[in-house]
């Protein structure tokens, strides 16, 4: 039973289907069409610097909004009776299991000109275009990834003992102080994994901006999609930069997470 051998197929699989493809991206980013070393792909990729920054910005704002919306609901959930907790978890999870294109399409239907929201606003005398701007993209993003923020926050908060909160109250802390001194520090691991689970996919997502945003709102994922079919080298360079940026973000985030955990 004390064997290491069963893991060999997995190791081979991960090398062949994860490491080698990523190395191919690396190789392709540093070469030109003929396979000779070149930095041309990076100089072309630099032309999309504004798209890149915008993607990170949209991802950042979406993550922030998700955190602000999710924190109270996760806390409320964690303080309910067991069966209410389970029911609410299920309610949060169900939309997550719908195909992500359908969820985006739902907003397209809701917000389009002459759609339900537009009609309602027209009754109130507000005439505006709801789609085709950055706000719509951020809305779609928040809708897509909100459950990914709620669930990790909730699972950490559910472990906070009610006695701890009551003790803090008995010792004279008001509500705000209880939040700041007890709930917040204990929920940091949940915040870190929630941010990871929302930021990574939203920074690299594609189609959301194409569907809900305007021509100027496309994100780096859309650029990779558009370019890769014709120019693999530039596409690889952009993919590589995206991956490194996300990696740096995660390292910084985890560093903060550890610091806070130690500070307690």
């Amino acid at each position, binding site marked *: 039973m004390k064997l290491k051998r069963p893991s060999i197929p997995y190791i081979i699989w991960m090398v062949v289907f994860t490491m080698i493809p990523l190395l191919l991206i690396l190789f392709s980013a540093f070469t030109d069409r003929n396979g000779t070393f070149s930095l041309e792909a990076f100089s072309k990729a630099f032309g999309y610097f504004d798209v890149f920054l915008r993607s990170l910005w949209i991802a950042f704002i979406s993550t922030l909004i998700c955190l602000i919306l999710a924190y109270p609901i996760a806390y409320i959930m964690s303080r309910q009776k067991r069966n209410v907790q389970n029911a609410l978890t299920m309610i949060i999870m169900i939309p997550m299991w719908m*195909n992500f294109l359908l969820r985006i399409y739902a907003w397209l239907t809701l917000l389009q000109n002459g759609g*339900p929201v537009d009609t309602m606003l027209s009754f109130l005398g507000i005439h505006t275009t709801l789609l085709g701007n950055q706000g719509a993209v951020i809305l779609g993003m928040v809708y897509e990834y909100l459950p990914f923020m709620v669930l990790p926050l909730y699972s950490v908060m559910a472990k906070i003992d009610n006695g701890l909160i009551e003790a803090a109250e008995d010792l004279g802390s008001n509500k705000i102080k209880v939040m700041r001194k007890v709930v917040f520090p204990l929920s940091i691991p949940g915040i870190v994994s929630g941010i990871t689970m929302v930021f990574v996919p939203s920074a690299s997502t594609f189609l959301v901006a194409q569907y809900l945003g305007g021509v100027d709102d496309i994100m780096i994922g859309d650029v990779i999609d558009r370019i890769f079919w014709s120019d693999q080298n530039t596409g690889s360079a952009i993919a590589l930069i*995206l991956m490194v940026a996300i990696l740096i973000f995660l390292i910084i985030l985890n560093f903060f997470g550890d610091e806070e955990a130690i500070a307690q």
Partner: protein
Amino acid sequence: MKKFSKIYTALIILFMYVPILTLILFSFNDGKTTVWKGFTLRWYADLFKDSQIISSLWNTLLIALLASLFATVLGTMAAIGINNFKGKKKILLQNAGNIEILTPDIVTGVALMLMFTLLGTALHFKMGFITVLLAHITFCTPYVVLNVLPRIRHMDYAVYEAALDLGCNQWQAFRKVVIHELMPGMFSGFLMSFTFSMDDFVITYFTRGSSFQTLSIQIYSMTHQRISPKINALSALMFVAVLILMIIINIKDKNQEKRKV
């Protein structure tokens, strides 16, 4: 629940469900726009007559089933092996799967496409069913490892030895003790793999070649054209399917809890 909590919870639930319920409502609309023209079931009839959609549904289910079965076997074997490593090697192997999990889908997708295109020209094959299956196994397996590893750590090795002492051969002991102990982890790994595979669009999109269709690819081409209310009918059916699945899982969990008590 206090008043504020109730209102806030209700608002979040509204935010999450209004879009989906709107689609379901319009799936019964006898008109192609978002103006209500009366009740109809014709979009559902159209949906079931659409042989492309039906065949994509089968493809999706087949890929999800094969990928998650394969991933469960591969991942469970991996977890058993990894658990027997020591020190740095063990940590390295445990985290190897995280590379795949943390790599953005689009990067995984284009990276695999790059490799499959190269292999395809060298070995004369085209991307399609097989490449999508290989890709799905790749992104599912790490989740199985993640689900199974904690169960192995808590497993009592003495029970396995006891089974051997009591006359089981190695295979019987493995099946009756190890697999039995790991079953819940394997099952949740399988379930996670199955849902991720069913839901995947990005990686399938880049590895499917030119003709292989899954449901999410089909949805992509339908939403891209934005014409047919068949999408609404499809959403409604998928929502109901998810709902039923969730209720079944929930009832099963409750029964298990009762049995434990």
